[in-house]
């Protein structure tokens, strides 16, 4: 029996999981159209490879991963591309993004697929296959998996597979573990091989006994050093940092990579996709989605990427008073702008929402410093202080009080007796800080450009004068030493070329100076951010841009 560790705080919200685990995973009928965004992962948007009118097969590459952090996008079924353009997507910003609309031909015909035997391949080759198969983290973070399988400076001792699934309502990982445990284990074995990790720890919350049993049976056939561990049901125990803490006792601070501590963590569904990608050559074109909440038949569905959310809701029988839907769980989920948006790789759950199911919070009362928020905060922050600073727009203080360690799990808001939307305040503060920093960077750049221009003008003046002097000198020399013309020439040349070298050195110095200033201007709390955090920054900036857009339209409206 493995000794488990505890993380601070946590809450026990009603789980509402049994509603959607009564029936096996079903397949959603073929939708009439699929809207496939080219940006479903953390990092750079994939480069579209198709044009309107193209016929594509299921699994055909339609979006090529760009350099750096990026991932591939595929056609989820066979059919014709009818449109490529901006559409509203399931994303926190609510902004439209580039999507391909695919009209299925109903044949669901696969492209030619090939198996990769990882044992006879190099880890590099395996990572390339995964990158081109569009495999990303399916727990919600959608970080490209191939990048997480690179071995960095530190050796990986422990591979943590996350089957905790702590958010209420969501059961897609639970059902996947019950029904496809072997594929998960095989995927985990591939990851262990790629990372050269010693042990595999699979953490599952103890409210999923069926999944635990299925996974235990599946591990019997597997090699040693793989453990299925029941962890206490406690939200947010499925957060990567919390699960790593519970299983290994290691605390990964904000801004630190878990790999620096010898641990890497993947979601169970990601493990399964990795196995499918290598064994069957199947790119990530479908995922398991829980459809629950205000529906008649809550269940788990295998859904093609790009399927409109509305298709899932009507299949599950959304009740008449459904007025909106949420992607993800009730603690950290994203309210969807409408039911036209499509299922993306990050979509683990769709909750049909009604005013009765999720009533609006009562008006917020003042904070009475009761510190119930601090008692439940898994990051061990002082949420009541962060709230105070965010409200007062004292962002420096908020950063000093580790605002950026907040994982936005929502436990503080959940317990707040004054019904203060605490997480919203932290999101606001974070986005303001990032916005100010990018503004500051922009103004720094402008100032440097200006200073450099001033400097250049000055330098040019001096050079002109020097050149003039040199010219005069040369002319005088030519005049006086008319007889020695041949000998005088090189001296003049040397006199002209010397200031040129000097100017280049000065430019170099100015560039160096500018670089140093730029480095010095970097904020202390956002230094060395992980790619995930950088992506969050991008998300928030997009959100902020939308807010500004809305604000601008509000201001503009009365003028018309």
């Amino acid at each position: 029996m493995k000794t488990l560790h505890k993380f601070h705080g946590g809450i026990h919200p009603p789980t509402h999981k049994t509603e959607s685990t009564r029936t096996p995973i079903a397949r959603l009928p073929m939708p009439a159209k699929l809207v496939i965004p080219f940006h479903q992962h953390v990092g750079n948007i994939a480069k579209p490879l198709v044009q309107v009118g193209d016929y594509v097969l299921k699994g055909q590459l339609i979006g090529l991963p760009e350099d750096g952090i990026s991932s591939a996008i595929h056609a989820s079924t066979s059919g014709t591309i009818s449109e490529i353009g901006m559409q509203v997507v399931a994303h926190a910003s609510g902004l439209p993004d580039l999507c391909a609309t695919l009209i299925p031909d109903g044949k669901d015909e696969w492209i030619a697929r090939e198996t990769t035997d990882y044992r006879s391949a190099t880890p590099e080759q395996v990572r390339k296959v995964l990158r081109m198969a569009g495999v990303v983290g399916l727990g919600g973070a959608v970080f490209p998996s191939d990048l997480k399988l690179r071995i960095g400076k530190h050796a990986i001792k422990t591979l943590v597979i996350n089957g905790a699934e702590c958010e209420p309502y969501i059961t897609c990982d639970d059902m996947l573990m019950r029904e496809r445990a072997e594929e998960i284990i095989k995927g985990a074995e591939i990851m262990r091989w790629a990372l050269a990790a010693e042990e595999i720890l699979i953490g599952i919350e103890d409210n999923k006994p069926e999944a635990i049993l299925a996974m235990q049976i599946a591990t019997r056939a597997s090699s040693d050093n793989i453990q299925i561990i029941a962890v206490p049901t406690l939200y947010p125990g499925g957060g990567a940092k919390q699960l790593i803490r519970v299983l290994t006792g290691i605390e990964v601070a904000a801004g630190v990579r878990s790999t620096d501590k010898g641990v890497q963590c993947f979601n169970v569904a990601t493990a399964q996709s990795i196995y499918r990608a290598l064994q069957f050559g199947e790119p990530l074109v479908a995922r398991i989605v829980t459809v629950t909440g205000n529906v008649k038949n809550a269940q788990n569905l295998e859904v093609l990427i790009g399927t409109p959310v509305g298709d899932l809701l009507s299949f599950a029988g959304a009740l008449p008073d459904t007025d909106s839907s949420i992607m993800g769980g009730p603690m950290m989920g994203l309210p969807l702008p409408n039911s036209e948006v499509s299922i993306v790789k990050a979509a683990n759950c769709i909750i049909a929402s009604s005013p009765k199911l999720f009533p609006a919070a009562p008006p917020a009362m003042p904070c009475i410093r009761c510190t119930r928020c601090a008692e439940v905060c898994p990051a061990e922050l002082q949420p009541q202080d962060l709230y105070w600073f965010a409200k007062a727009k004292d962002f420096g203080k908020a950063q000093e009080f580790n605002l950026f360690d907040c994982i936005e799990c929502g436990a503080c808001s959940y317990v707040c007796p004054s019904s203060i939307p605490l997480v919203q305040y932290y999101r606001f503060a974070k986005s303001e800080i990032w916005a100010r920093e990018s503004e500051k960077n922009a103004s720094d750049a402008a100032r440097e450009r200006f200073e450099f221009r001033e400097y250049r003008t000055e330098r040019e003046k001096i050079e002109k004068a020097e050149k003039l002097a040199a010219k005069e000198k040369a002319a005088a020399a030519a005049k006086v030493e008319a007889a020695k013309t041949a000998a005088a020439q090189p001296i003049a040349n040397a006199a002209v070329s010397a200031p040129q070298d000097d100017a280049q050195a000065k430019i170099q110095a100015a560039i160096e100076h500018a670089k140093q200033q730029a480095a010095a201007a970097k904020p202390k709390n956002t230094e060395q951010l992980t790619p995930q955090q950088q992506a969050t920054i991008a998300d928030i900036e997009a959100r902020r841009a939308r807010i500004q857009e809305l604000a601008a339209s509000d201001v503009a409206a009365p003028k018309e």
Partner: protein
Amino acid sequence: MSAFFSPFISKSDSVSAIMLRVMLALIPGIALYVWYFGPAILVSMTLASLTALTVEAAMLKIRHRPIAPFLKDNSALLTAWLIALSIPPLAPWWLVVVGTAFAIAIAKHLYGGLGNNPFNPAMIAYAVLIVSFPVQMTHWLAPLNMGGAELNFMQQLHYLLTGALPDGIKLDAVSMATPLDTLKTQLHLAHPVSEILTQPIFGSLAGHGSEMVALGFLIGGLYLLATRIISWHLPVAYLGSLFLIAGAFHLADPTHYATPVFHWFAGATMLGAFFILTDPVSSPTTHKGKLIFAAGAALLTYLIRVFGAFPDGMAFAVLLMNICVPLIDAYTRPKIFGNKEQQS
């Protein structure tokens, strides 16, 4: 849209419900109060409640704040009850009114209302009254069934409103000094503690009657701990520190210093430990901070009680420690996740 952002769910435990439960926890103490001293306390509680609600509504109106949600939060009522329980029930009716009005208008609303007052409003009321009306603040009721003159409820009510006692009964006959006050006065007369405590106003733990009321507050406090309305840090650190300090003095010189148990059950100790110190608004937020705050309050309570000029030290101890709260919070911020040990 039913909600705009996550989390979409919450645990329904409102400020109003929390305050109400604290008020419920006061009931055992209040019941014993009525049993031992008669129902006069209920009159002053009613007066305080009416004053608190009126002044709260008026201040909210002046400050252009919504009235209904704040009146319903029960915080003003709780303050009113604590004020009534802190001052003598036989004091003239306007004393409790003035104290409560001052607490709500000045100590609470002038600082920004609920959640923003740096000082405990009930203790501000007590401090203002004891400084301004020291004589009226000594009109504590003598316990019933002690063989002396007694007032029935109508007589108590009549006296509170008009200041007139029934013929033949003098105020001295129905009121008395508190056990803490008596102890202090008698010690000045060079009587040893053991001899003083044999007087009839003393009971088996501290004061006759008042010790039982303190026990009632202890029971209510344990209920608050059990239901996790309050954390253990403040009451345990307060009672523990007071016990240690009083114990040290008592061991050193038992003829001049009463036992720690006496200090636990005399005066406002139990009320303070569970209901006054634990006011979240004016106490520290960190665990370590709470321990420091409560220990400091215990030390000051003891020093003021034993060496100071006032009969009890609770109020001033709490107010003095309230001043230190921002400093305590700033220096006791706990280490966060992942930063507890030096990162390698």
